[in-house]
């Protein structure tokens, strides 16, 4: 079955079985392996992508359901080799160690700060509670997201 959607601003068309979830489609059919799969049943948040502006778990949406949507993955957050302010803040605060959860953390935080650039600590912690990290203990991640808020206040697309 054919699924057509925008992937990081580019139109894509891909033939998939209806049972294939969007994460497998991105990784195996479209070669976008930045999206990581941890649990594959909606618990860990590693596979978070942004569909029509909203952070969603790409293991909990079928590729065929993305028809006509705009999908942004971690690859789509920066347009060149430079780090975005969010990524810079992650680096500065050591907000990753093994890096497995990082794509999901970045897409989730990017969706949050795009909509709510003034999110307070409690809000950031609450939103990130849907993303598991087994390395950092979360505190550096929360600090990085809080610091990145400034860049989202200045412009819609940092």
């Amino acid at each position, binding site marked *: 079955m054919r699924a057509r959607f925008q992937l990081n601003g580019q139109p894509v068309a891909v033939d998939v079985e209806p049972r294939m979830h969007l994460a497998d489609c991105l990784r195996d059919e479209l070669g976008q392996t930045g999206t990581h799969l941890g649990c*594959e049943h*909606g618990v860990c948040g590693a596979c*978070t992508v942004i569909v029509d502006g909203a952070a*969603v778990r790409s293991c*909990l949406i079928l590729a065929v359901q993305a028809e006509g949507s705009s999908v942004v993955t971690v690859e789509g957050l920066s347009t060149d080799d430079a780090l975005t302010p969010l990524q810079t803040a992650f680096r500065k605060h050591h907000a990753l160690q093994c890096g497995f959860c990082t794509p999901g953390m970045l897409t*989730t935080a990017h969706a949050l700060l795009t909509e709510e650039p003034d999110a307070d600590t409690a809000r950031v912690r609450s939103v990130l509670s849907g993303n598991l990290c087994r390395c950092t203990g979360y505190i550096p991640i929360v600090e990085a997201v809080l610091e990145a808020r400034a860049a989202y206040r200045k412009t819609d697309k940092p």
Partner: protein
Amino acid sequence: MKPVPFEYHAPATLREAVELLASDPDAMVIAGGQSLIPLLALRLATPSLLVDLRRVPGLHAIAVGDGGVRLGPRVRWRDIEDHGPLEIAHPLLQEAIAHVAHYQIRNRGTVGGSLAHADPAAELPGVAVTCEAEITLVGVAGSRTIRAGEFFTGPLTTVRQRDEIITELYLPFWPRDRHWAFLKFAQRQGDFALAGIALFYDEDQDGRVRNAHIGVIGACDRPRRLTEVETVLNGRPVDEVLIREAVEIAARTVDPPEDLHAPAAYRRALVATLVQRGLRRATQPRSV
């Protein structure tokens, strides 16, 4: 794990969707998929056909009127969170929905999906039963409306027929001066409740309770009201003596399951504690 292979259709009308469901006894409806896709991944559900409601128009309205609140089946959790008028029109609903799962799931999970999935620990079925909501379904035989208290029949089971699609959840009018509380206990933020309660009551001019409603999630085989507790509350002012009585009856009458997450006695104690905290919370003034 990967789901079993299935066919997929996204019809453009409700009628087509119902006919597709009727044509295949192993067909299932998908809306947000936040409960169904995990079941597919774990192969606890093995449909031959998924009928996606994403192209069916008119299913995602939130209507607030003098008679109450009407929610379309494709209303997402975040639509309820973001809907300003609901803060007054149904604060219990909004508070309960704030406890549903996580950010990403709230961006896709839907009203109709939660009702049809009927997890005994889910928030919305608990609110529906507590508030005497009504659920409207459309199938090949036409449309019917069922009281929420009769809709849920057990864990993950309802009276919905295979060809029926939920088209509306109706929550009766909510008076502004109503007393209420929603409390949930889970092991981690966003987890399903080990136990939770939704409660509300009105007061007569002498400050005595009338119209008491208490519902429990997570500690029964389906969302259930604690009718004996409601009976003891009605006609009396809420004070510590009454709360003690209510707590004792709640602990005696709730019938919790036992599983690897918690023994029955623990859930029973949780319900008692939540009823106590909920009644105390409900007596406090709210700033809306």
